[in-house]
C-alpha cells in the first residue's frame, strides 16, 4: 500500500499558502451528526425539524509525537480557530474539504532527556468539527 496523501490536511485561508499535512495518526475516527430542532409533543413524541444533516467531526490521536511535531501541529491552530480541513469523510467515502473548528489539544509528557529537554508526548489528541 502506498500512502501519497495525508489523512488530514489543514489548509490555511491565505491564497497560495501550502497546506499543513498532519502526521499519520495512530487512531482516526469520524462522526456525522444530524442537527435537529425538536421538542416533545403533547403525546410525548419527538416533534420538530431537521436543521442540518451530515455535520462532520473527526478525532485524531497519536500514541507518540516528538516535541517538535506536536508543537508544529499546535502552532497551526494558535491563531486560527476555524480552518479549511481536507480529510477522509466517512459519508462520502472519499476526501472532502470543509470548514472546521478545533477542539482542545491534549497530550501527556513522555520524558525529558539528560539535558532537560522534552523529548516527546504520548496520547496526543485533537478533534475537528464542521462549523
Amino acid at each position: 500500500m502506498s500512502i501519497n496523501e495525508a489523512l488530514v490536511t489543514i489548509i490555511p485561508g491565505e491564497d497560495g499558502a501550502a497546506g499543513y499535512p498532519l502526521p499519520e495518526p495512530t487512531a482516526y475516527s469520524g462522526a456525522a451528526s444530524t442537527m435537529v430542532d425538536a421538542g416533545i409533543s403533547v403525546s410525548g413524541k419527538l416533534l420538530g425539524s431537521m436543521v442540518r444533516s451530515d455535520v462532520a467531526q473527526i478525532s485524531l490521536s497519536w500514541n507518540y509525537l516528538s516535541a517538535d511535531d506536536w508543537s508544529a501541529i499546535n502552532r497551526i491552530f494558535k491563531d486560527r480557530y476555524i480552518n479549511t480541513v481536507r480529510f477522509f469523510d466517512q459519508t462520502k467515502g472519499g476526501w472532502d474539504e470543509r470548514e472546521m473548528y478545533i477542539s482542545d489539544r491534549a497530550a501527556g509528557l513522555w520524558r525529558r532527556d539528560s539535558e532537560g529537554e522534552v523529548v516527546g508526548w504520548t496520547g496526543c489528541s485533537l478533534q475537528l468539527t464542521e462549523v
Partner: protein
Amino acid sequence: MQTTSKEWKANQALQLTSEGFVEVSYKVSDPDIWEKGPAVDADEKLYLSEPEKLISENDYEITPYATCEPDLWRLDGSRITVPGSGGYGYSGYISRSLCDDTGQFDTPLVVVIEFDEMVTSMLPGLTVTWGTAYNEYPVEFRVKVFDGGSYVAGETVINNGVVSIVELEMTNFDRIEIEIVRWCRGRRRARLGKIFMGIEKVYTKSDMLKFSSSETVDPVSAALPKYEVSFEIDNRDDIFNPLNDAGLSKYMMERQEIRTRYGYKLNGLVEWIPGGVYYLSDWSAPQNGLSALFKARDLLGFLNKTYYKGTYEPGGVTLYTLVQKVLREANSLKDDPWVLDEEVLGGVTTTAPLPVSSLAKCLQLIANAACCVIFFDRSGRLHIEPPASAGDAVQVDDDKSYSKAEISLTDPVMQIDVSMYSYAEEPGKELYNGNLTLHPGENVFEIEYSDTARDVIVQVNAGSVSVVPAKTNFYAKFCTLVLDCPSSVTCNVIITGTVLKPGETILSVNSPDGTFQTGRQNDEPQVLKNNLITNEACARAVGGWVYGNLRNRKRASLSWRADPGLETLDTVKIVRSGEEEPIDLLVTSSELEFTGAFKEKIEGTVMS
C-alpha cells in the same frame, strides 16, 4: 392557506420534517423614488418592447418569444410564436439590431431612465435583470449617472450573470443611462427584463440569528390588521454599523420593502412559499453587538396620513367609491395592489362623510360597514372582501402540538346596539372667521371648520384678494382655500355653510339575520359605532354579522410545529385525544418563530 405540493403536505405529517428554510429579501432603495416621475426609453427597440414597464414595482413575467435569431426556433416548446394580431405578452426591452458574431453591438445600445425631478436621496446602486427567459446577458455594459448634462458617476461592468447588481453611490441626479456594449452570445438581440433602482440583499438562515413574524386580523374589521416581521442579521462585518462609511446604513430608510419566503428541502430541492411583504419600520445595530436587528410591518402601518376629504353625500355614495378615493389618496400604493369586492362594496351606500382620521382607519371603517374583512395576502396585496368560506382545514393533533389547546370564554354578547347616523341641516351658519396674512401671488390655506358642513361659501373681505376656484376645494370638515393677491395684505376670511348636526338612532340586533327577537336576555348590549352606517339596511347587516361572530364565545390557543403555509383566517381542526369532536378554530392571530423548526402560537375563535 398557501398552495403547496403533495410532498410538502406529506412532509408536514412527519414527526421530524426535512430541513426548513427562511429567506429575507431586503430592497435597499428610496421608497419615494416613484414620486420623482421616472420614465424609461431605449434605442433601437423592437416592436414587442415595453421599456416603460422596466422600472415598474410589479414583477412582470417575461414571455419567451421566438424572435428572429439563431437557435431560438427549437421545437421543444420552450419558445412562443409572436402573435400576428398584437396583444403581446411582456418582453421588457428587446433591441431591434443584433450583435455581431463576437457579441459586440455596432454602437452601444442605450436605455435611458429620466426623472421629472432631481433625485436627492442616496441610492446604493442599480439591480438590472436581463434576459432571464433566455439565460442571456451582456458581458460588458456601462452605467452612467447625470445631473442635467453633467456626468455625476458611472461604472463599467464586466458581467457574468442574468442579474447584475451595480454597486454605485448615486445622489443628486435626474438621468441614468445603461449602455449595452457586448452580449454573451453572438448574433443575438439585447434583452432587458427589469431595472430596480437600488440593490436587493438576500439573507438566508445562515445569515440570521433570529427570525419571527406575527399576524393579527379582526374577522369583523373592528380593528386594523397587523403584520410584523422581526429578524437579526449577522453584523460581524459591520455592514449595518452607522459609523461604517462603506456600509449600508446610510442608504437605509423607513418603508424599504422586505419580502420573506419559507421553504422545505423536498426530494433534494427546496420548495418555497411566500411569507409576506413588509416595509422596514425600525432597525438598530448595537455597537457592542454582533448582529443588527430589523423590524418591518405591513403597509397599513405607514398609512398614517390624515384623510380630510370626506364630503356629505345626501344622495348616498357607495363604499366602493369611498374606498377608491382613500386608496387614491394613499398614493404610496402603486399599480393597484389591492383586491376589492366591487359587488359587495358597491352594494352599500352611505350619506356620511368619512371622518377626519388616518387613511388606514378610514379603510377599516369602510370594511366594517360593508361586512368585509381587511387583510393582506402574502404578495402584499390589500384585500377588502367578505370572509371566505372555510376551505380545507389543517389538522393539528397531539402529535403535532407542543401544548394542549387552551380554551377560554369571552363575555356573552346577547345584543348589539348599532348606531345609525343621520344629519340635521342648519343653513347659514358661520364655520370660520379669521384674519389671514397673504403674500403676493397664490396662497394656500388648509382650514378646519367648527362643524361638519355642506354648501360652503367663502367671503374674503379685501378688494384685491380673489379666490382661485380651480384650486379651492371644500370638504365636510375642511377646505383647501387658495387666495390670489397682487401684494402683501392681511384679509378677513369668513366661511359659512349649512351645518350638519349628527343624530344617532340605536338599532338593536340579537340575531345573525339582523333582527331583534324579543324575550332574550339583553343585560349588557355591545355598542357598535361606525360613522358610515347611515341607513337601516346597513345597520341590520353589520349588526347581524357582528352578532353572528361574537356569539362564538370560545377562544382557543395552542403551540404547534407550524406549517408556514397557514395564514390568519384559515381554519385549523384541532383533534384532541380523549375527545370525540374536533375543534374548528378560525385563526385570528399567529406568532411564527424559526429556530431551525417552524414553531407557532396560534389563537382564534372556536367555530364548532
